[in-house]
């Protein structure tokens, strides 16, 4: 019976289920679907003294952000539940053969699990590629999401669904940046 639930769920099942989170959050809590704000709330909630915090991080995070922190905690919990019951999906195996060939040409050999072990591992953090992917990549995600005022959830899903032109511009930026890295930086970094 669990077989029917095993990954990868086809897009026409996963996408609509994902989209339903928008009305669900609005109806249950009056909240707009967005995830990257949780990073700001975490900074605001950090035990650093107030005098160290820039004004953007001094606000009542419990009032505006507690729901968001509970929500992202839930995301981690749901993921834990999924891999415990159904196993870690071998996404590297289910991607298209063309992508596998392209990545193999860049030196990726292990296509098991969700992320390539050549780049993601505690022992890879000190290698140039592992450092850039995890540390620089993570930094840019946090910096860029706040500058743009949202991430994939807040702009690509909530923003566009609410017909916001700024969100469409942000999403075009997401793609410009992603293509720049995929076709410009990664071949240098991994080559």
């Amino acid at each position, binding site marked *: 019976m669990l077989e029917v639930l095993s990954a990868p769920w086809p897009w026409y099942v996963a996408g609509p289920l994902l989209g339903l989170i*928008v009305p669900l959050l609005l109806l249950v809590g009056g909240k707009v679907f967005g995830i990257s704000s949780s990073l700001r709330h975490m900074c605001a909630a950090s035990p650093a003294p107030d005098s160290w915090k820039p004004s953007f*991080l001094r606000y009542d995070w419990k009032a505006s952000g507690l729901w968001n922190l509970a929500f992202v905690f839930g995301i981690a919990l749901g993921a834990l539940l999924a891999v415990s019951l159904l196993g870690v999906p071998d996404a590297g195996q289910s991607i298209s053969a063309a992508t596998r060939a392209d990545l193999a040409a860049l030196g990726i050999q292990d296509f098991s699990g969700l992320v390539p072990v050549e780049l993601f591992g505690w022992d890879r953090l000190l290698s140039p590629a592992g450092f850039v992917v995890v540390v620089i990549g993570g930094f840019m995600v946090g910096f860029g999401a*706040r500058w743009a005022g949202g991430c994939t959830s807040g702009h*690509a899903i909530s923003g566009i669904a609410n017909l916001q032109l700024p969100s469409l511009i942000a999403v075009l930026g997401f793609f410009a940046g992603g293509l720049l*890295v995929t076709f410009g930086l990664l071949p240098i970094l991994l080559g």
Partner: protein
Amino acid sequence: MTTEKTTEWTALLAFVLMGAYLGVIFVQSEVVSWFRIQEMFRFQSFHMYGIIGSAVAVATLSIQILKRTGLKTLSGEPIELSPKEWGDSRIPAARYWMGGTIFGMGWALLGACPGPIFALLGAGVSVLVVGLLAALLGTWSYSVLRSRLPH
């Protein structure tokens, strides 16, 4: 425990459950995978486009229904969706395309946007602790530089 406190905890639990719903979808549809993000940016599969596209379609339709029926939240509040503000920079939409491009670069490198960072942590990819700390450092750095960046 007072009634007010109980309501607060019930509400938080509801958000945890909705997050968990999302976490399961994130993992089982493989959108949390670095491999899938590469496949998307290389335009080699419809998978990610189908997911984002159909999610947007369902969300758009839902918002229209909510707006037109004037439905209220469970606690009886009106549903409000504030518009995304245009910035005050002389460069048009500066924050959206500049911040967006930086975010997109990070997305392609890390292979995860903020939601999947938390999902990967839950799925046991422990090195994402470092990715999350780096994202927090990025958020903090933006907060420091904010007044000097075009918006």
